[in-house]
């Protein structure tokens, strides 16, 4: 068998090349027409900064999602410790009735538009164990509106990433400029 020539090394990464080809074919070269709403939603979805509300076991898996192997930073998801800088809130772990007013207050402190991800069974519905318990809130959707539920006890980091991707889908499909602000 004769040795085959190696494939040519691409000078640009394929999606960038496609974008450059589209730009070159336009008159003027660098003007793209788009909807304002689409652009706003695209940029909002690509830089979700969550407030990390780590309560229990799920918080450890949430930390693992930001560590080396799963690396949530590559998706523009950067943890914030203050609600004022956050776009969404990841409530990870079981929420007690004593903690519920604090979850609500931090949600109120977040600027609009804001989203909530409920991570783990306990935050979603009181969990696989705490259904007959006097101290755990049976789901944080009793105090804050939840956008995405991530099931699992605790969910793997991949599941949290999937949850964030679902939230990105939701944000991209939103009529951002004409939406009603929730009470």
């Amino acid at each position, binding site marked *: 068998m004769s040795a085959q020539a190696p494939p040519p090394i691409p000078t640009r990464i394929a999606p960038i090349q496609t974008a450059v080809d589209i730009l070159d074919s336009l008159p003027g070269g660098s003007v793209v027409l788009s909807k304002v709403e689409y652009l706003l939603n695209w940029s909002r979805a690509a830089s979700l900064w969550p407030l990390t509300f780590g309560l*229990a*076991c799920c918080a450890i898996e949430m930390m*693992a999602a930001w*560590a080396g*192997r799963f690396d949530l930073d590559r998706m523009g998801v950067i943890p914030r410790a203050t609600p004022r800088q956050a776009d969404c809130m990841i409530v990870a772990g079981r929420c007690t009735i004593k903690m519920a007013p604090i979850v609500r207050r931090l949600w109120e402190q977040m600027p609009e538009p804001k989203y909530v991800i409920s991570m783990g069974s306990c935050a979603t519905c009181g969990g696989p*164990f705490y259904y007959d318990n006097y101290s755990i809130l049976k789901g944080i959707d009793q105090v804050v509106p939840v956008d995405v539920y991530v099931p699992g*006890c605790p969910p793997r980091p991949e599941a949290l990433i999937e949850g964030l991707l679902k939230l990105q889908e939701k944000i991209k499909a939103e009529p951002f400029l004409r939406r009603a602000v929730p009470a």
Partner: protein
Amino acid sequence: MALRTEELMLNMGPQHPSTHGVLRLVVTLDGENIVDVVPDIGYLHSSVEKMMEYRTYLQNVALADRGMDYLTALANEEGYLLAVERVGRIEVPPRARYLRTIMLELQRLSSHLVWLGTWGIDLGATTVFLYCFRERERILDLFEQATGGRLHHVYFRPGGVYEDLPDGWTDRVLAFCDEFLGRVDEYHELLTGNPIFLARVQGVGVLPRDRAIAMGACGPVARASGVDFDVRKAFPYEAYGELAFDVPVFQEGDCFARYRVRMEEMRQSVRIIQQAIAKLPDGEIRSKVQVNVKLPRGEAYARTESPRGDLGVYLVSEGEDAPYRVKIRAPSFSNLFALTEMMRGWKVADVIAILGSVDIVLSDVDR
């Protein structure tokens, strides 16, 4: 006219990136100096002790994973099942005892890695977190292959363990152990080669030996204050009596001593794992498979050395298939109150360094 000053109440938590959970500290400050610290706990109270009374002995194994200290699920199972086995006089076959020992020490490594990584973040050294979680993921892979779970395993059963090891697992653990010893030295150089880190932890938050004993401090916190006590040595359980290991003890009682105790414990854990794998006997992994465990009337107290300290479980049985009463002596709880002793007199910037060095888990404190 004399300048009038007054004390400032600073509320830290419960939602704070450095409280390692949902701890609220009410700090009274005089200028920058800490006058008093009052911890407010209960933000993660999940009433595990009460719930255990309404679940069977087998169901409680899964509850012990989650309701108690969530970083050390297997150590909780061990404490609970040791009490169950003592009440029921259930024998554990030798292979199961060694398997449990290997798992417990791997759990200690993964727990100490979370502590080191998060403490590094608290002190501004974010790289340590990434390094520690890199190794921790490998431990979790090993756990996943053997037990099926990353964080909550439900692997131990009354009278043994649930499943035998998969093929080649011990070789993978030994390969990991060899690599990990070098990694511990790497973390050590990364942190102790940093003068900022040393300035923030050396001589800070001193807990004298007599106060450590008076406040009931246990585990690495007590051993850093010169208390030479380890349940694994004093009351050996599982296979610890047959394995050689050292208990690191330091006299200084500051944050740096607590750091060095845990770093040395990681090296000793690797030593225990290597010996246990070399001695791992063949045979049964579970003495008697029971779908419904019923214990005779009686009571027992089991002491184990969890990564955070002296974990005790007191169990009373009335002859039913569920316990009559379970009392958990949580190591983080007593260490949390030793924390108030450590903090008095230091600056407000040291709160984070001292809090991180104690390594509390609020799920363990509140239960």
